[in-house]
């Protein structure tokens, strides 16, 4: 079993910045910059006579130019993906004889082929436009599914511990040790390959990492006083989960949802390579990178452009997510932990 493709789905934690009202204005780490001043002003709203925070979510988001940029980027990407047939100048599968040099080398970006051509003489720009559909779908949906499953396992195990926790975490261990690559090859031969199979395999394989880290986090958070207090007072468990525990896990999930896009897209490429996912000549960003990697020194555009696409997508979601997380921060809205 190669740990490599499992490596591709790395985990991250981002423990929610638990800011209580008492810490307002005393953050020595905040350096003076326009945005932090704005934040200080926002959090100062708890004190009477201070500036009111923006009321709506949208208004809050608008204050941060980076988030706006992120939203615009996502919007552009989604539009391009949805309207691919109109955006792409050429058929992504068409191999142009003039798309290769006489010796069969791909062409660098030029007037006719804006991003250059790939190793079969196909227009790279068109392929990336159509490829956005797959990569966005996988990066967001498959990743999201993995997140959900993993959080459920990890949070339950960390909160209840005991026998249930043990079973869940050992099951997680089992799935981690399981050779996903071989499963993929087996599926490729048995089932009709399709994108949904890829999404399924990714979700089945990637959830283990987030489960493990969420577990750790919940172990620590669940022991905190406010949770104990809630439990003693008699708050029903689901409410504890959603109102008190979950907000603290949000940052982790958001970071996983963003950094994870890159690794998930590359994982899809590996799976398609094994024959599980999209069949040639269907383009995907990861697939283009995968098949052109060894030509990197000779034809860097084949890796650079799809790579930038993946990077921009992850960053865009990250920028938006960061701000949304702050916007959803219950403490800033004045609600206590």
């Amino acid at each position, binding site marked *: 079993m190669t740990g490599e493709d499992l490596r591709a789905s790395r985990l991250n934690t981002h423990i929610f910045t*638990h800011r209580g009202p008492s810490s307002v204005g005393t953050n020595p780490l905040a350096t003076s910059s326009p945005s932090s001043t704005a934040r200080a002003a926002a959090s100062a709203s708890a004190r009477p006579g201070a500036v009111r925070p923006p009321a709506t979510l949208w208004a809050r988001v608008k204050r941060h130019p980076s988030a706006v940029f992120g939203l615009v980027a996502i919007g552009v990407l989604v539009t391009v993906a949805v309207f691919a047939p109109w955006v792409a100048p050429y058929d992504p599968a068409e191999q142009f004889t003039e798309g290769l040099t006489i010796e069969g080398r791909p062409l660098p970006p030029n007037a006719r082929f804006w991003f250059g051509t790939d190793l079969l003489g196909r227009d790279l720009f068109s392929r990336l436009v159509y490829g956005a559909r797959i990569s966005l779908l996988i990066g967001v949906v498959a990743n999201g599914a993995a997140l959900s499953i993993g959080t459920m396992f990890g949070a339950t195990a960390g909160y209840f511990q005991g026998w249930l926790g043990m079973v869940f975490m050992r099951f997680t*261990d089992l799935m981690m040790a399981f050779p996903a690559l071989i499963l993929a090859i087996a599926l490729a031969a048995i089932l009709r390959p399709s994108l949904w199979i890829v999404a399924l395999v990714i979700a089945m394989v990637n959830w283990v990492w987030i489960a493990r880290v969420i577990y*750790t986090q919940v172990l620590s958070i669940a022991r905190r006083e406010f949770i104990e207090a809630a439990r003693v007072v008699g708050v029903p468990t689901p409410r504890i989960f959603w109102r008190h525990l979950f907000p603290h896990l949000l940052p982790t999930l958001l*970071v996983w949802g963003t950094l994870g896009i890159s690794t998930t897209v590359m994982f899809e490429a590996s799976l398609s390579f094994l024959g599980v996912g999209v069949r040639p000549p269907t383009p995907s960003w990861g697939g283009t990178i*995968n098949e052109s990697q060894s030509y990197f020194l000779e034809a860097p555009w084949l890796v650079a452009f799809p*790579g930038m696409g993946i990077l921009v997508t*992850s960053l865009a979601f990250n920028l938006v997510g960061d701000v949304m997380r702050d916007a959803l921060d219950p403490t800033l809205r004045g609600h206590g932990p």
Partner: protein
Amino acid sequence: MTAYVLRRLVQSAVILLGVSLLTFLLLFALPADPARMIAGRSATVETVARIRTELGLDRPLAVQYARYLQRLARGDLGRSYAQKVEVADLLRSRLAATFYLMLGGIFFELLIGLPAGLLAAVRRRTRTDRTVMLGAFLGVSAPQFVLGLLLIYLLAYKVAVFPLGGYGTPAHLVLPAVTLGIAGGGWYARMMRSAVLDVVHKDYVRTARAKGASEPRVLTRHVMRNALLPVVTMVGLDFGTFMGGVVIVESVFGWPGIGQLAWQAIQIVDIPVIMGVVLVSAVAIMLGNLMADLAYPLLDPRIRYG
């Protein structure tokens, strides 16, 4: 605590059994015939049939698995179909290299990721923060093959600072470990940043500051200890996955690790080797997680195991 460790070890043994059984079943579900792969192109049907009998592949699955377990109990992992070498020898020959790369990889991940994350947290929402985070994304998004090739090209070919791949001296370890470090460091950086930001507002930190403790002391004594919790989790995970082999980095740098062995074995459906690698990988993963679990109480006394 000892009871806990013992319990975990017993559970791990059960899981190993489960993994081996599942893998075994999966390998036989593959539409590939090892006997035919060994027999090669010019073999007659009789030759293939005879090879199949010799390998015991014509027995029912349950019998084959039972025989496998019996041999495993004796420490016999079988022989590679392709190379006819004992699987144990194959694994042994690559274990050291895999181990060093694992250490080197984690070392550089921490070296790159932790200071970067800390810096980003301290300079939150400034240009430094954004640059560091952009770097983290770049590192994670860059395909490892390209990263490794680029490093070799620049630092081993254009300027001969490091050897052009291979294995043998610490100098050989640097580039592959750095590649792993860049690829994984981004995760550590992001996580470190959030962990620090989380802890830095807690009451006990304020108390320490109020008591007049110096900033570095506050950082190390109070912030780091708790911020390290998720770091430990990730190091545990890295231990497991790196010991299972990192085929891309091993390939680019010619590092004789388990990853290359596994990849080759999967291509030709060399069942004994695949089983061997899966077992090693499973042991490493569970060990990594166990070590992490044992470390948590040291960092956060509130975490206890029954």
